[in-house]
């Protein structure tokens, strides 16, 4: 999967949880889930579970630890898919 397709998938996953429309519209690799999209930290786990379901992967605690922005999410998904 190329980066654009991956970002598009992640964008669809986070959409229900975002609280800042402007930041969501401009979502890029550098977008931070909490600081920019204002996603409540209680919903980060929902996003992680949605990512697991969407890509049919399982994320460990260590994978989750840095999942605070789009770029980290992309890296983790890519590495899991290539395993």
């Amino acid at each position, binding site marked *: 999967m190329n980066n654009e397709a991956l970002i598009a998938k992640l964008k669809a996953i986070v959409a229900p*949880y975002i*609280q*800042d429309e402007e930041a969501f519209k401009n979502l890029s690799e550098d977008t931070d889930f*909490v*600081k920019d999209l*204002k996603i*409540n*930290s*209680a*919903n*980060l*786990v*929902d996003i*992680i*579970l949605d990512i*697991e379901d969407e890509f049919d992967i399982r994320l460990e*605690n260590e994978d*989750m*630890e*840095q*999942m*605070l922005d789009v770029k980290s999410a992309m890296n983790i998904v890519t590495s899991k898919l290539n395993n």
Partner: protein
Amino acid sequence: MVGNDIVDLKEAQNASSWQRPRFLDKLFTDIEQTYIENSNNPFTTVWRLWSMKEAAYKLFIQQNPDRFYNPKKFECRIEKNSGIVKFQTFRCYVETKITSDYVLSEARCIQNNLTSEVLKFEDKNQKMQSVMLKRMLMNALSETLKIPKTALIFRVSKLGTPSVSYNNKIINVSLTHHGNYGAFALGV
């Protein structure tokens, strides 16, 4: 130093689904899952434990400035309204208040009563809530310290940790909002 966290239970009911597969496993240790299973109200216990972890994390990053997401490693023990949260060598005391509307936790390095002031918002607009919470916090701090509001400077660190400074002194504060509720605590 203080860290607090509020969960609007109605919002939690609507926006999160704790009963979905793997949800509990991702966030909670075996002991915490036992608390939930044995609870008369598993839903409230889920959010109580969550708010304890969040409050403890907010306190932890004031001492160890680095953002991360690892709620399961913040291990909770609870007894009545009090609890202890451990993360690696870090340990703090957490007091929790549970009403039919919200769950509120406050973490400190030493055992203390819960001091957070709660606000109910009519509007769910986050930016407006932040502005109102900050204003209430500054009023309360000005009154507590007997210092005019104009002498207090509010700051948010790169990690998102708030503090107020005056006369070269820094006071740690904690702000939280979720759904229609917000709360602030003063680290004094």
